[in-house]
């Protein structure tokens, strides 16, 4: 009997299969985490990633991680679009103390990390870069924990607003620092100025164009929720793809897109978009891959004291900024404290940012990279738990969730 119709064993692992298996692993780990440990599902996704990743079982090797980068970009693009669309200029105009609080939160956090890294003997320019990377709160963690808990209220709203502000702040500071990093690498002044300009300003222009297109098309389509959903998702995906192939910053492009389409929609032609269950699929993959990319061996290089200082000062800076303006911006100091805890998650994006920085500017140094990467490991694990704790403690989580 000829059995040639049977495939060779074991069957080849296709991309599609990998994607599906990752989803199911993430699902199982997330659910187990929530049921048996009472922790956020995200922590489960991250741990599943750690287990599957190169550090432990190696089922997900670095090739697989590289190939998955497009999925990661897609997930991040969706998140930061939502984040941008929640940055409500009107609120900041009506409550300028809140704007002050959000700026102070980012600024104190940045300065705190910068000063302590300089104190530990790192070069000021690199210390500033590492500080800027650490200023951003993870938009993905913040939004996903909020969705999971269905939390609502002042701490929740301000958490989303502040992470939008500190993400924008972090990218602005990085854009300003990059030319100096280039000069450090003895690259011509032209490239030093033009490349960062291209990456950031180009991305902002792309985001602006996408937002104009979204508003024009939404006006033409009319107020049909299903059609508008397709429109917005289509534009988000296309913008991510374009930013990717033009080598522009995906985050800056999408945050700009979200921010402008929301705030410049004076005729209110765009309906509120709820990405909902579809987006969940990408989030599971995002955190799983973030877990797989965590670099535990960074701990071997980084001094524990520096990492601990980085994490603690980062939190204290955020807390100080928020507490100073808590009453003026309209919340009690206790809630401002919870807000600072909620903003603890550090973006997994930092891993990408650090790797890119080290590739482009080798003098950034292994050691400082290891400090940031170690901080990411710590905060990727405790961040979601902190956010969940803060939202529950503030009484803003839905009681049964």
């Amino acid at each position, binding site marked *: 009997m000829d059995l040639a119709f049977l495939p060779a064993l074991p069957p080849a692992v296709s991309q599609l299969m990998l994607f599906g298996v990752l989803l199911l692993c993430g699902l199982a780990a997330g659910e187990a985490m929530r049921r048996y440990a009472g922790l956020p599902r995200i922590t489960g996704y991250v741990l599943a990633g750690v287990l599957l990743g190169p550090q432990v079982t190696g089922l997900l090797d670095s090739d697989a991680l590289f190939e998955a980068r497009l999925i990661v970009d897609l997930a991040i693009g969706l998140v930061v679009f939502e984040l941008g*669309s*929640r940055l*409500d200029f*009107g*609120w900041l105009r*009506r*409550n300028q103390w*809140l704007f002050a609080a959000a700026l102070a939160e980012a600024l104190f956090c940045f300065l705190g990390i910068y000063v302590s890294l300089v104190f530990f003997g790192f070069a000021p320019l690199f210390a500033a870069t590492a500080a800027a990377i650490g200023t951003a709160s993870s938009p993905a963690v913040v939004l996903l924990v909020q969705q999971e808990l*269905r939390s*609502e*209220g*002042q701490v929740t*709203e301000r958490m989303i607003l502040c992470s939008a502000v500190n993400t924008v702040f972090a990218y602005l500071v990085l854009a300003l620092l990059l030319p100096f990093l280039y000069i450090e690498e003895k690259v011509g002044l032209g490239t030093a100025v033009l490349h960062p300009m291209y990456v950031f300003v180009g991305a902002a222009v792309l985001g602006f164009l996408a937002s104009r297109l979204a508003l024009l098309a939404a006006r033409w389509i*009319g*107020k049909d*929720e299903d059609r508008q959903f397709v429109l917005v998702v289509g534009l988000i995906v296309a913008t991510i793809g374009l930013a990717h192939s033009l080598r522009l910053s995906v985050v800056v492009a999408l945050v700009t897109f979200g921010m402008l389409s*929301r705030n410049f929609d004076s005729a*209110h032609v765009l*309906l*509120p978009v*709820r990405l909902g269950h579809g987006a969940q699929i990408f989030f599971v993959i995002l955190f799983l891959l973030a877990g797989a990319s965590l670099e535990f061996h960074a701990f071997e290089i980084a001094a524990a004291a520096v990492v601990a200082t980085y994490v603690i000062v980062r939190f204290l800076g955020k807390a100080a900024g928020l507490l100073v303006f808590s009453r003026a*911006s*309209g*919340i*009690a100091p206790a809630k401002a404290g919870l807000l600072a805890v909620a903003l603890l998650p550090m973006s997994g994006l930092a891993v990408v940012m650090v790797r890119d920085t080290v590739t482009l500017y080798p003098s950034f140094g292994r050691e400082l990279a290891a400090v940031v990467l170690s901080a990411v490991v710590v905060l990727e694990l405790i961040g979601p738990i902190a956010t969940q704790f803060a939202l529950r403690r503030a009484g*803003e989580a*839905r*009681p049964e969730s």
Partner: protein
Amino acid sequence: MSADQEEHFKPSAALSLGVELELQLVKPHDLDLARGAADLLARLDRRKLPGAVKPEITESMIELNSSVHSSCESLLEELNVLRKAVVDDAGVLNLRVSGGGSHPFHDWADRRIFPNERFINVVQRYGYLAKQFTVFGQHIHIGCPSADDAVYLVHMLTRYVPHFIALSAASPFYQGEDTSYQSSRLTAVSAFPLAGHMPFVADWAEFLEYYVKMKRFGIVASMKDFYWDIRPKPEYGTIEIRVCDTPLTVRRAALLAAYAQALAAYYLADRPRKPERSIYLVNSFNRFEAARFGFAGELIDPWSGEKRRIGEDILAEMARIEPHATRAGGDELVAELAGVVRGGVSDADWLRARHRERGALADVVRDACEKWRTHN
């Protein structure tokens, strides 16, 4: 509230008045109901305000309480002070405030109960009805010099329940659908077992007999458990009209109060009729017509048995009581309300028109918030 206090009617100045307005708190980014009452109330607590702002059953509602007034003009002035304070403080917390009897598309299952003992008890007893009760009404208090006057006025004003429903109707949308009603809110109230109207009692003594019996049966614990269209409120010395949707503006709320005051002035002064059971025979028919069709609905007069359009009946009655409106000082406001009836556009019609023009319920909510914010 002790039982004794409730059984003792504390007389108050005839025709004094006050209103309560339940308001919606809305999130600007998706225009759904917000969870913000506690934070907003904490902020408002630090202001010196006339009247009061209080929590309501879910965290998406607050209630404005006016103080006691003798004139509708001063009532309107005070409501505007409260309105501005609430809108300003809500702005700081990125909340919007809106009138209207229902939120057009919120999902009742998402509502959270304001954590105080009374509300938690209501939820334990009534289950999902309590969350579905996230509807927004205006209550009008009219002062009565004696308990028997209060009983008399409740009977007499019951004939006008359809008027107040049609004049205030502002809940055409519910759970994301056009209900085809002018006021869909009333249906949410009717689901409660103790909804309805006061029994046909001759005077306060007979009312107390009924009330004490209901308490002994353990059916009610206090007067608050009766969700009647109009009920006596002995501790304030008032009767309370509870059928109105919260209008889209404070001005309309004051106009409704002026009309109630003028009607009370007419009945207490002239005592033109005696209470009859026929008032309650036609009541549910009239009430339904008003909630469903508004001014265009039909009303049966309990005394003559004649049927006419509710809009026409309102204008006829307003003309009849005009001298009393003048005496109570509310004639201009009642005349303005008559203009609304002639114009034929209720708040519900306005909301529907916004929906037709804008195409989405979220836009209707945004426009209603804007109307509340800008109209004196």
